[in-house]
């Protein structure tokens, strides 16, 4: 088959264009990366509420604290500047976000009556009234004015107080003042803050 010079050039050009169109170079591929979910969060330093080690944590809150924005906690992780844990956390501490983002979190007072097998909701007013009444009743029943040797002791042995690790100095000062005024001797907490 004889082809002319013109036809050869035409066919070469068409073939070359076809190859370019169906070529295999996809061009530069940019680096893809997932977005960092704490890139623009507000960081709040806090203390893990679980055990007495009192690890420092950073609470990451979405939003720039603008007036119309409602903040939302999105992440909690260890505080690398905290001398106790230097950024690490235990499995309970690592799950702290779930303390806030949890549909099973307890948000209202509940009571389980003696002998009952379930928790029932009660209002805050009723809660405080009942606690006050029980404290009074227990103190009246168990208050000891004088011990076996006749010394004045004025102690209430029927009540004990336990505190948590996030209780601050100021809070514990109030606890001691209040409890000692009732005569409570059994005071304990694990606060190291």
């Amino acid at each position, binding site marked *: *088959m004889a082809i002319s010079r013109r036809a050869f050039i035409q066919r070469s050009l068409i073939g070359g264009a076809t190859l370019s169109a169906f070529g295999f170079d996809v061009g530069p591929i*940019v680096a893809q990366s997932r977005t960092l979910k704490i890139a623009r969060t507000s960081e709040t330093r806090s203390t893990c509420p679980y055990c007495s080690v009192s690890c420092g944590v950073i609470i990451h809150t979405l939003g720039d604290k603008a007036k119309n924005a409602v903040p939302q906690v999105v992440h909690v992780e260890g505080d690398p500047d905290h001398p106790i844990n230097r950024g690490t956390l235990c499995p309970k501490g*690592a799950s702290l976000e779930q303390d806030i983002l949890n549909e099973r979190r307890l948000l209202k007072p509940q009571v389980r009556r003696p002998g009952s097998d379930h928790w029932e909701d009660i209002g805050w007013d009723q809660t405080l009234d009942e606690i006050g009444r029980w404290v009074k009743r227990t103190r009246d029943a168990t208050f000891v004015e004088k011990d076996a040797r006749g010394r004045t002791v004025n102690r209430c042995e029927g009540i004990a107080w336990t505190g948590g690790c996030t209780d601050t100095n100021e809070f514990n000062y109030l606890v001691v003042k209040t409890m000692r005024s009732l005569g409570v001797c059994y005071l304990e907490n694990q606060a190291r803050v």
Partner: protein
Amino acid sequence: MATGILQVKAISGHAGAPPGRGVQREEEVCKYIDVTTCIGCKACEVACVEWNDMPFQQTTFDNTYQTMPSTAWNYWNLIKFNEYQKDDGSLMWLMRKDQCMHCEDPGCLRACPADGAIVQYTNGIVDFQQENCIGCQYCVSGCPFDIPKFNGTTKKVYKCTLCSDRVGQGLEPACIKSCPTGCLKFGTKTDMRALADKRAQQLREHSGFPNAGVYDPPSVNGTHVIYVLHDITHPERYGGLPANPQIPVTYTLWKRVAKPIGLLMALFAAPVAFFHYITEGPKEAQPPSPGFGEPRPPEGERPQ
């Protein structure tokens, strides 16, 4: 600690290296896992679930401290527990953090046919891009460590990203940060390898583990997650860690032999068909053989 922008090094379903490589210094990152100082507290598991916002599912108790039998599409990091009885009858608790090993030669990436569903960054991280995943699950069978896991609802495969979002911004992975005993460390591959070699030597010479060593399998050109084991000669005791992880040979044959040949054939078929058309012209209908049927009646006279 190695940081820097994530630059793509290899892409699944795509031949050759991406353009623009080799113009920057490329530090490789690595996770160091010292199983001898792991206490099995699972802080890394929780930190992983929390950082990646994965929905948690209820687990069942099956006579082990292990959270679940194997990693899941929404549980990328699992401590595998094994109570191993030594020759003298005493017990030894082996705990290994199981997650993606981020192989230098990833079987998942070699098996994946979807362009860009699996990428390997120059720092060694192998990352799945779910928007390009076609759900074929070839990566599941291509992985020597049984890591990629399929989600039947979204029809996509998921696995540990080595927190590429955090590492790309100069942060350490979530699991590494949480570890309270310091048995997990993160840094460049060179630094972590040196640290691991030193720790293994310490175990051999001072702690009574003559077979202690570093797990960095050469059969996948090394991994970006390395272990210090009490006994490097029996890695399978640590929750089934393969002694010699191998990518299935079928994927090598397919991707390295069959696929280039097929592409070449496709490449040649198109111009051959084109030039055949130019030189020979379109295929003409053959004239009907004499005596074969009657000629078709005109359009208006056909029976309805």
